[in-house]
């Protein structure tokens, strides 16, 4: 009878699991309009003045709404209004504040005004900060515990308040230094706030402190005055740094006892966007839910060529967002993430190196296709070139590889030719990359396709495609540099180049071996100095490196954001800037100053072309590659288009929850025979023991 009881209990428990047993989500969520995705690194900051990394923007971009945003479908990337009514037009002023014509010379422009008009009627998500709360809040431990919620309309004051928060003495905005150079009065404002900040960490009411360069014009418009001409400023207006923050939120979170409970604005964002954060456990899962007060944008009706055929315009004009809830689950390891994607528990996934062969096959012609298994599951592949560049930098302060001499230049060119980036991409990136011809990746103004866009110092144009120059050319350049066959022409000493890298371990060894092989092709000895990340950064800062690996992800889709990486006044050693190679070329710097203040057009392209010619000739970098992103998605997830600079993409995506539910049940039917097998196995193991025990118990103490 007891056995029957256990069997009944087991049956009830198993029945409660439903048709699938391995579903990691609550049964109540089955069939709901929810997007399931994952995050690997826990976000450090969700406060828009501090948040900068992609891990963080994945959340903040869905919650906070800056004045501008990127068009979801059009490429090249195009700025469109977000909370603003239109993309603001620059108004140029001279030193006395008199207006200048639109085509005024950049040198005459002392200031630029941007007047931003916002849409009336936008409201914030429901939040306790907008409602009266009981006097004693000590018993509330999460935001959900607060009994009252309220909202209010978005006003221009909130945008100005957020810009002031960039200079808040207790916040660490990564762009404060940059913005101090541009926004009039921000530097002085930051200094004055240091004196005003309450010592006890209480609320600093920024509304009481005027910022000369930013002012509210009326309830729905405000003006930002920047120094000189800086057209790229508009791109910053599409980032969460410039999204509105209500002063009530700052006041609410400054109450005593809130920080001790981790109830800070840094962890509980409050915005006007399509989603609001309703569950915040960065250790396990984060949940975004539809903001009930969201104004409802319309899905775009235009895109680039091919979007209509790809079905990306099917929802033209429909009200956003389509998805009710987005569940982000933390997956620290790639293997569980990948397997759960294959089971249908994640709607989309990247492809790690471990699972590349399982997902993708390369045809004889080089075209990339999904494997049979992926196609059978209805999985689709989307590829896109990232707005990133990976490179090896020469330290231009180094006496051997740096400097402006012809010998050093030829040495750098020889090394650049010898390192076969195409082979590297094929072996170590599974083909997921595009060999770089310059710092500018595809999709950014200034990038030129085809023959006109190749680096003539490294490539020849053969049979309609670029072909890396031969090792013989590299050897010749090396000999002309004074190192025939990799030995000093005078002393006969071998040429030894030191590479600093953070790569260690088994995976790195094969790359290092490959690199050694590349250098040996021209007789150069490579010494790899593997070090930890901190020491590596320190060596780069101090200029104690010769050759090093680096990379850059674009902040915004403008060539200035790549070409400044080689701008003299950005030198890492002298100015703590982003020019890690410490490259300086007077003509390049002059052209950069001219180019960065220009609108896109033929003249700007001509200047960029000249700048790239200088760079290619001087070769301060070994031009590496622009990574390609491969994304897989299930058939039930539609309207998904990769965007490398616009991150507020969840509102456009569409889920067919019924199909997902059906396929999940089909793919995850529990296999029960192993349970029986395990039971039999245990019985098989126990049987000899039981028999042996009984035999012993029956044995007599005296031998027969």
């Amino acid at each position, binding site marked *: 009878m007891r056995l029957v009881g256990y069997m009944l209990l087991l049956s009830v428990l198993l029945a409660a*699991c439903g048709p*699938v*047993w*391995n*579903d*990691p989500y*609550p049964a109540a969520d089955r069939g709901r309009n929810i997007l399931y995705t994952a995050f690997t690194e*826990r976000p*450090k*900051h969700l406060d828009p003045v501090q948040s*900068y*990394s992609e891990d963080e923007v994945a959340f903040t971009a869905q919650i906070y709404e800056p004045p501008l945003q990127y068009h979801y479908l059009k490429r090249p990337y195009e700025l469109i209004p977000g909370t603003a009514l239109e993309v603001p037009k620059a108004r140029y002023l001279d030193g006395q504040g008199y207006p200048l014509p639109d085509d005024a010379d950049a040198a005459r422009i002392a200031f630029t005004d941007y007047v931003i008009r916002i849409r009336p009627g936008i409201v914030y998500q429901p939040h306790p900060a907008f409602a009266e709360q009981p006097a004693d809040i000590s018993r509330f431990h999460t935001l959900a515990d607060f009994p009252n919620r309220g909202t209010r309309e978005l006003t221009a004051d909130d945008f100005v308040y957020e810009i002031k928060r960039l200079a808040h*003495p*207790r916040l*660490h905005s*990564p*762009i*404060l*230094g*940059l913005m101090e150079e541009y926004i009039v009065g921000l530097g002085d404002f930051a200094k004055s706030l240091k004196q005003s900040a309450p010592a006890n960490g209480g609320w600093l009411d920024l509304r009481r402190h005027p910022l000369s360069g930013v002012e509210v014009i009326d309830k729905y418009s405000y003006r930002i005055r920047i120094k000189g001409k800086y057209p790229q400023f508009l791109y910053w207006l599409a980032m969460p740094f410039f999204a509105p923050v209500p002063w009530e939120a700052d006041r609410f979170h400054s109450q005593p006892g809130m*920080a*001790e*409970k*981790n109830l*800070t604005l*840094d*962890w509980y964002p409050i915005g006007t966007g399509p989603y609001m954060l309703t569950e915040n*456990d960065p*250790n*396990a899962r984060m949940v975004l839910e539809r903001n009930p007060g969201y104004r409802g944008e319309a899905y775009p009706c235009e895109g680039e060529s091919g979007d209509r055929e790809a079905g990306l315009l099917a929802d033209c004009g429909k009200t956003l967002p389509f998805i009710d809830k987005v569940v982000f*689950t*933390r*997956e*620290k*390891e790639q*293997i*569980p993430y990948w*397997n*759960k994607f*294959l*089971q249908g*528990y994640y709607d989309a996934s990247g492809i790690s190196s471990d699972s590349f062969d399982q997902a993708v096959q390369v045809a004889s012609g080089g075209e990339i296709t999904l494997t049979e298994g992926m196609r059978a599951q209805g999985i689709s592949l989307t590829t896109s070139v990232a707005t990133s560049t990976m490179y090896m930098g020469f330290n231009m302060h180094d006496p051997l590889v740096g400097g402006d001499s012809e010998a050093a230049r030829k040495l750098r060119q020889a090394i650049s030719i010898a390192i076969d980036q195409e082979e590297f991409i094929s072996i170590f990136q599974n083909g997921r990359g595009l060999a770089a011809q310059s710092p500018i990746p595809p999709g950014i103004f200034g990038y030129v396709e085809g023959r006109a866009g190749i680096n003539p110092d490294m490539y020849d144009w053969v049979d309609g495609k670029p072909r890396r120059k031969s090792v013989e050319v590299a050897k010749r350049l090396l000999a002309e540099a004074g190192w025939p066959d990799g030995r000093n022409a005078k002393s006969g000493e071998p040429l030894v180049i030191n590479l600093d890298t953070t790569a260690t371990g088994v995976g790195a060894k094969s790359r290092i071996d490959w690199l050694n092989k590349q250098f040996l092709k021209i007789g150069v000895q490579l010494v790899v100095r593997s070090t*930890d990340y*901190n020491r590596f*950064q*320190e060596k780069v800062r101090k200029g104690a490196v010769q050759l090093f690996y680096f990379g850059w992800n674009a*902040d915004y889709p403008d060539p200035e954001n790549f070409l400044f990486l080689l701008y003299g006044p950005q030198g890492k050693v002298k100015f*703590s800037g*982003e020019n890690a190679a410490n490259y300086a070329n007077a003509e390049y710097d002059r052209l950069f100053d001219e180019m960065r203040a220009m609108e896109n057009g033929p003249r700007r392209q001509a200047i960029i072309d000249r700048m790239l010619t200088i760079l290619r000739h001087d070769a301060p970098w070994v031009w590496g590659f622009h990574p390609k992103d491969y994304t897989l998605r299930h058939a039930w997830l539609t309207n998904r288009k990769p965007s490398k600079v616009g991150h507020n993409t969840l509102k456009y995506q569409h889920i067919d929850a019924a199909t997902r539910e059906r396929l999940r049940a089909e793919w*995850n*039917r*529990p*296999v029960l025979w*192993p*349970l029986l097998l395990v039971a039999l196995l245990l019985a098989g193991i126990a049987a*000899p*023991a039981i028999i*042996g*025990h009984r035999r012993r*118990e029956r044995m007599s103490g005296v031998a027969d």
Partner: protein
Amino acid sequence: MLAYIIRRLLYALPILIGVNLITFALFFVVNSPDDMARMQLGVKRVTPEAIEKWKAERGYDRPLLWNAQAPGVAAATETIFFQKSVKMFAFDFGRADDGRDIAREIATRMAPSLAVALPVFALGLFAAVTFALLLVYFRASYLDFWGVVFCVAMMSVSGLFYIIGGQWLVSKVWHLVPISGYAGGADAAKFLVLPVIISVIGGIGSSTRWYRTLFLEEITKDYVRTARAKGLSERAVLFGHVLRNALIPILTGVVVLIPLLFMGSLLIESFFGIPGLGSYTIDAINAQDFAVVRAMVFIGSLLYIVGLLLTDISYTLVDPRVRLQ
């Protein structure tokens, strides 16, 4: 016994100071306060002013161990080591570098860690002791031989293999439980089944061999022969006498582990997405978050000391001859 306990707790103070000093030295040999600031502020557009500001806010702008500029006692107290260590002895762990309260974070993550560690501990101990007694019962037979072979084979396989293989077979191929994840309350059960089984299986080889050795040592002693001579069954001899007398060495290895169960499991939590203290420690090490690393090492040391004390006390419970003075 009370005096003994108080004395042992007082001994713990210099040990904890020493552990704290070693952790401090090891951490700052590898990471400087500037490195920590850069790690938190990101790699893009970080200015020297921002780094100085970050350090000043968190008290990392002081000298590490000795402040030559400060007068008198302040030379020792106005240092990073002193300022960061004193509060910890009052269990004030402060804030992580990302601003979150460490004590609250530890309290939140303790439950998931225990949800895995307690069943693993209890089931693992039960399974290993039972299996070891079984092998001892059938000592010198083919069952014992193949049991030992099985244990050696289990010991020889990497823990990572059990995890990846278990996830692949049980979750991916047989679809019996979720591959990873965690939920609170009763929903936690379906996420815990696999990590618990894998942990128990992964640890059974070495534990069984250890207990088997202890039991074999006992089974040859005179009192066992006497018990048999009295006519007791082999089962009564094993469970009533051998197991009881082998408890002291078992307790030496087991009781000390009980407090450490709070610390969680690094590998299991990471692969199964369990938001416990093990993964908290790993995250902190990766993020160079000294405040969290120091707090976790401190708590780990404290729990270890408590575990040793409990072990001593447990001896008095299982062996009446033991007196703590």
